[in-house]
């Protein structure tokens, strides 16, 4: 008591010792590097869980090893992965973005506006380009709004993004009067091209799967190899120290919300292309929680400063495969939810040991 940080210039006299002279983790590691199962579980836990799930399905689920099953799973997981990548950046700075599902809905209602008439913008191709670019630009700007609330406004990220979590879907519904729009009713000859995003095939693979893989690879590289990536982790690891080392902490925080908005926009377009329709009240529903779950199961702690994009990808796959396995064996949906919740708890518990 009485030593809460940030309260004036009060300084506790004896806070914690500056540094433990020897780190228990280090000793633990060196003691039994080979036989340290707990350490292995912590380090490769999520990957191991994924392998177990795959092996289980190969053995017990008929026709699991088919291109169709693989495609189905990857297709279903693509939007979650794409949004969860953005969420990973936000969480790495110690924040969270609750608005992603609503931003997806905004992208979903904006895109059809550019496809209603082939000649609307001079040439159908321009309409198609706008149908892709404009919604993503819009959600990126909404992401910037989140970022401004967090940095300039100084709001807690959970509160700042709650604003658009609520209002964003409202905007989407207001724009189209809450009505579901079906692409088959649209006039633009470019509609089939637009739907290709979700329904086409490139060498037997769905385009959104390719988009997902590209985004994962780029994001993993950005986080590891760029100045920005290091700044993200430094900001989440110790914002005060990062600022004193010259890290533009506020710009970094602002940027991650823009990235999250950008990726939510892409995911929104994929969803309506798969559905062949745009429903402002259902697109991206619960996406914020699914994305956070993928991030957490993947091993990125919510406290910030540590993050793994590949982990997030694996986390999303685990949740997807869990759901698939249970459904494939006719387990009721209620049980499925409980099992997935259990997986999240297990992941968090494993993490707690890692970061202690």
């Amino acid at each position: 008591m009485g030593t809460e940080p940030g309260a004036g210039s009060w300084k506790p006299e004896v806070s914690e010792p500056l540094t433990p002279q020897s780190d228990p983790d280090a000793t633990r590691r060196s003691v039994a590097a080979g036989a340290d199962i707990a350490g292995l579980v912590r380090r490769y836990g999520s990957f191991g869980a994924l392998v177990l799930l795959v092996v289980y399905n190969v053995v017990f689920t008929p026709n699991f090893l088919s291109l169709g099953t693989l495609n189905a799973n990857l297709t279903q997981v693509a939007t979650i992965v794409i949004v969860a990548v953005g969420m990973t950046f936000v969480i790495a700075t110690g924040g969270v973005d609750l608005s992603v599902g609503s931003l997806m809905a905004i992208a979903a209602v904006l895109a059809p506006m550019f496809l209603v008439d082939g000649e609307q913008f001079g040439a159908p191709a321009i309409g198609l380009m706008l149908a892709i670019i404009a919604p993503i630009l819009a959600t990126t700007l909404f992401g910037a709004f989140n970022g401004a609330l967090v940095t300039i406004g100084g709001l807690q990220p959970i509160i700042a993004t709650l604003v658009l979590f609520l209002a964003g879907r409202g905007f989407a519904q207001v724009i189209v009067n809450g009505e579901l729009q079906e692409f088959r009713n649209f006039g633009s000859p470019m509609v089939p091209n637009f739907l290709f995003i979700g329904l086409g095939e490139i060498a037997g693979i769905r385009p959104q799967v390719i988009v997902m893989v590209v985004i994962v690879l780029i994001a993993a590289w950005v986080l590891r190899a760029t100045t920005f990536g290091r700044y993200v982790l430094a900001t989440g690891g110790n914002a005060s120290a990062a600022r004193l080392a010259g890290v533009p902490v506020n710009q970094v925080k602002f940027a991650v919300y823009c990235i999250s908005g950008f990726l939510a926009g892409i995911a929104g377009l994929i969803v309506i292309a798969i559905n062949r329709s745009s429903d402002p009240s259902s697109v991206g529903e619960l996406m914020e929680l699914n994305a956070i779950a993928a991030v957490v199961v993947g091993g990125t702690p919510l406290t910030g400063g540590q993050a793994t994009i590949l982990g997030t990808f694996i986390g999303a796959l685990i949740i997807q495969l869990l759901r698939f396995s249970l459904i494939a064996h006719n387990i009721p949906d209620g049980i499925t939810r409980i099992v997935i919740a259990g997986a999240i708890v297990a992941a968090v518990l494993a993490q707690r040991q890692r970061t202690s």
Partner: protein
Amino acid sequence: MADLMADPAPILEMEGIDKVFPGVVALDGASLRVAAGEVHAVVGQNGAGKSTLIKILNGAYRRDGGTIVLDGRAVDFHNPLEAQRAGVSTIYQEINLVPHRSIAENILMGREPQRWGFLDRARMHRDAAAVLGRLGVRLDVRRPLSTLNIANQQMVAIARAISTEARIVIMDEPTSSLDEREVEVLFDVIRGLKANGIAVIYISHRLDELYAVCDRVTIMRDGQTIDERPVAGVNKVELVARMLGKEIGEVRRSGATGFGQPGTRTPGELLVEVNGLSGERLDGANVTVRSGEIVGLAGLLGSGRTEVARAVFGADPAHGELRVRGKPVRWRSPRDAIRAGFGLCVEDRKADGIIPHMSVRENLTLAVLPALSRHGIVDSAEQRAIVDRFIDRLAIKTAGPEQKIRELSGGNQQKVLLARWLCLNPSLLLLDEPTRGIDVGAKAEIQGLIDELADDGLGVLMISSELEELTEGADRVVVLREGRTVAELDHAAASQDTVMHAMAHGDGAGSRELEAGSE
């Protein structure tokens, strides 16, 4: 000073109090004796153990050893509530009341008067007003606490304390947010408590206040109680000397530090000039640093030393003139200062220095990243080369560049943080307690390094609580007192005595005194 304890039987006797935190002995047989109706000061440098001792008394911490006798009864508080019930109340600097409830509710919280099971609001307001009246404070007790200024909130906190029949009121830095007039009101209240037989334990870094309001003083150092006597029987210089563990008249040039021969360097161009710096804890501080010199910044805790360094680095806003190489500048953030070639090593490395989850490599190169990157992509080969070079040059003991920095010892963490700036080729380093919490060997190494850097033309502003570091390491010592520059001593004039004297009295005996605004 047992022979001086002839006065009334103590209401509180703490004896042989031990407290160990992981890796740190906070208290080592500390004691505290307070008589009823006495205002008792507890003083000591940062880390002396004052706060820990107080927290053991008020139940926030459990002691590891020793006895506490309150009113002749041995007590053992498990939590602050027990302590409060036994008559020990604490008033913290940040006041722990409920801002959106009324004054009356705050004063009587948990003991609200009831009538037939319902809150008796009228009586609550009467009772609360009566308690405030005892303090000579008149406030509308129905107002929400949050509408009061800090001084009046503090009065409410004190009212709450005495309404719980407190026998001992602990005040931890009570005046830090008060202006002079408010301080006078507080002192009147303290005298009133005293007249009512209530003991006050008063913790403050402002020595003048101790002389104004306290009867006795307990001096702590390194977790031990080293002296206890009437305030009237000790002068300020002596008090400071006891806090720092020095004897008056002791002039030591033992070479206990790793510094070389300060005072023999020829300083170069004027790097930084700070005039009339004011703001939080600052009230007209002046400092200059030239290239190729070490300027020591001395002052008691709370004298504004850290604030000067942070203001020069653009970390906190402050008013006043800042000139860099003669040109007035205004930093928007530390980034600007870093671009101008400045670096800051903070006092609290864990809170403001290291990024704990990151490796030695990443911590070391955090500030140099922009220079290491092309189009935002880090040149990892060059990064690795820099890290290897500095691990080698500063003899950083680490399992390797990929080891997490939090696994390193304090001294090696500090070396990494120094390297964070050195790889930028800085012109000025601001070092806030550069050797605090560092073992003896690494300490001398770091001191030697600072010395070497100054020889090579680096400007250094070094804050230190250790007099040896200042008198043996600095070419010049600037002394701050209550946010103001009160003395500037060159190496020859800066002895432990003159520095202490300036810290205590605000002037350097035998040195040139500074008028505000000069230099």
